[in-house]
């Protein structure tokens, strides 16, 4: 086992996927000589050449649309979108073409495209560099949506995404690129948990805290803090937000009877809304309290100096835990 940063784990995932399958190629802006603005593709150009590590013109629809054509031809493109906020020009190609071609052709054409997106905030970036657009993609049938939270998952799930015959939108929390963890690079993919499986990051008995990606670390901190308060939180790292592993989720909720969801993305019609609706449908009779959401505000992503007021932090999560535990909280007497 190696101690690797998430950035290095993803880099290694790409390298091995390319070495294993000559049909895998990576494409995007600045991914060649520069190795990507986050250096995720570092060294790949030297190793695999310009036919497989493609520095593209600066046009996201162009990158995504040509990836569709390459997939038509039997290739497995791994597309890097430079930053979350730049995926929108490619949105039409993703939702109208990438997501639908398999359905449209009754399974004759597959779109094994992996769309890597350095994602979400907390790094003091400029405008358009900290967005959480995952709900747009979760809402689109035909796509799988992954959000990783640690180097081991990042490595394994990237390889699974590339191996999948379905298109996968793969969110990489840029705030975690430099966080380190144990990575078993030689884990046989067949033995790894399937890509859609949730992970119980911490066991607990009073509250189920559902989250993914960049918020997992914050959720873990909240669980540790809550313990001092005598509340036992079970943290579930969803890993896949389409599809969601409801088996793991409902088993936890039936045990705890209380649900808090946290994510960075804005609240309205977000992933949290979907999770709570689905959990309520499945576990209504087990619930001891109304499920609660802790999310970004319903605002454009704020300037960096203010982002800490937007991102759910440990205290806001604990406040929601107080709500589901029916303890005094910020909403006591405010909302009825």
């Amino acid at each position, binding site marked *: 086992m190696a101690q690797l940063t998430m950035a290095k784990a993803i880099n290694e995932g790409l390298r091995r996927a390319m070495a294993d399958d000559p049909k895998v190629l990576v494409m995007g802006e600045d991914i060649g000589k520069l190795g990507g603005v986050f250096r995720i593709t570092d060294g790949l150009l030297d190793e695999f050449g310009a036919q497989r590590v493609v520095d593209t013109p600066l046009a996201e629809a162009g990158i995504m649309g040509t990836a569709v054509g390459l997939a038509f031809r039997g*290739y497995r493109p791994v597309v890097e979108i430079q930053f979350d906020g730049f995926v929108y020009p490619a949105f039409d*190609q993703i939702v109208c073409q990438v997501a639908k071609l398999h359905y449209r*052709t009754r*399974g004759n*054409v597959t779109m094994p495209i992996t769309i890597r997106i350095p994602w979400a905030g907390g790094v003091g970036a400029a405008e358009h560099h900290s967005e959480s657009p995952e709900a747009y993609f979760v809402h689109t*049938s035909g796509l799988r949506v992954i959000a990783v939270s640690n180097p081991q998952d990042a490595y394994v799930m990237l390889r699974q995404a590339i191996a999948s015959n379905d298109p996968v939108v793969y969110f990489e929390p840029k705030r975690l690129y430099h966080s380190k963890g144990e990575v078993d690079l030689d884990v046989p993919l067949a033995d790894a948990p399937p890509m859609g499986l949730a992970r119980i990051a911490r066991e607990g008995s009073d509250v189920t805290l559902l989250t993914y990606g960049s918020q997992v670390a914050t959720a873990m901190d909240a669980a540790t803090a809550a313990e001092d308060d005598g509340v036992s939180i079970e943290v579930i790292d969803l890993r896949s937000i389409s599809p969601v592993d409801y088996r793991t989720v409902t088993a936890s909720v039936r045990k705890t009877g209380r649900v808090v969801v946290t994510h960075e993305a804005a609240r309205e019609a977000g992933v949290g809304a979907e999770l709570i609706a689905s959990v309520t449908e499945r576990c209504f009779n087990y619930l001891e309290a109304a499920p609660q959401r802790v999310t970004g505000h319903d605002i454009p992503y704020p300037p960096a100096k203010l982002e800490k007021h937007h991102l759910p932090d440990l205290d806001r999560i604990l406040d929601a835990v107080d709500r589901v535990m029916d303890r005094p909280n910020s909403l006591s007497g405010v909302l009825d």
Partner: protein
Amino acid sequence: MTMTHTLTPTADLATDIDDVARLLTPDGERIADPELDRWIGDIDAGTLRGLYRDMVLLRRIDTEGVALQRQGQLALWPPCQGQEATQIGTARALRADDFAFPSYRETGVVYARGGKPADFVLAWRGEEHSTYNPYDINTATQQIIIGAQALHAVGYAMGVQRDGTDQVSVAYFGDGASSQGDVNEAMVFAASFGAPVVFVCTNNQWAISEPVSVQAKFPIAGRAPGFGIPSMRVDGNDVLACFAAMRWALDNARRGNGPAFIEAVTYRMGPHTTSDDPTRYRDKDEVEKWRRRDPITRLEALLRARGEFDEAFVAAVETDADALAVAVREAAMTATTRPPLTVLDNVYAEPHSGLEEQRAWFGAYLDGFAPAAEGV
């Protein structure tokens, strides 16, 4: 390539329909064109008759499509009358292993690639998004998002480059599509990578109700050189010119010289679709002017002048057209709609727990309508 330091467009506006390369005058007289002539040296009477037959059959499919829509058998039909020479001329120049990416109006491309009667109508009837397997006829599902397929063609061509074969991919799109970012990005990518792709822009003068002058102040073919792509503006009602231009473009790509661009200047005689009312935006005179440039009568005139248009040939083509029309009608009338649960098929290539749950639920729901077992 030459370039002056002051770039001033000097050509006539995009609307000059006679500033085109052609081999047949609107009267069907064979004229010389130094660029195009060399590409049709081998074209004999048999090939010309074949092109004529294709155009007549395509027009019959189109007529049948309109009729079926009017009779309520199809939800919609996008007529291509007037564009037969562009579609047949370019598509017939392709090799079977080349790959075409057509738009919704390119019925003739699907026909020329080997589409079956059901393939022309069942998507418009709403039975399928695509009746054919794209790999069976090396033709992508007809595209409805304007311009999206131009990028797919370029990506496919990039794959061809990596595979080291001499196949070519073709992107078909309209004059309206030339305004789309995707088409312009496609030209950037194609030129940057030298991809073996041919862009065929069918300038039929109208994008629904918007005239080409809303899309372009300069001939559309004139844009390609700005991307570093050689281009040609041909008479889209001259099947020989379309065929020759396509051969030029394909040869360019096969020899590793990268993309080429063809603007075929033609006219959509009918409405945009059967839901459209073109009398609201274009005048009769314009339509009549183009009727006199009809691509089929033009080739007929040439064949007549050469004594190749005998009665037996005409009768044989008529018979084939009738038979095809019957087959198209039958495909529409005998279509069976898939069982309900199949709406959930093929969303994903691999198992997806969310959809599996919905399938289980919807299946159980549907089962609730099954007739009760006997004796219960």
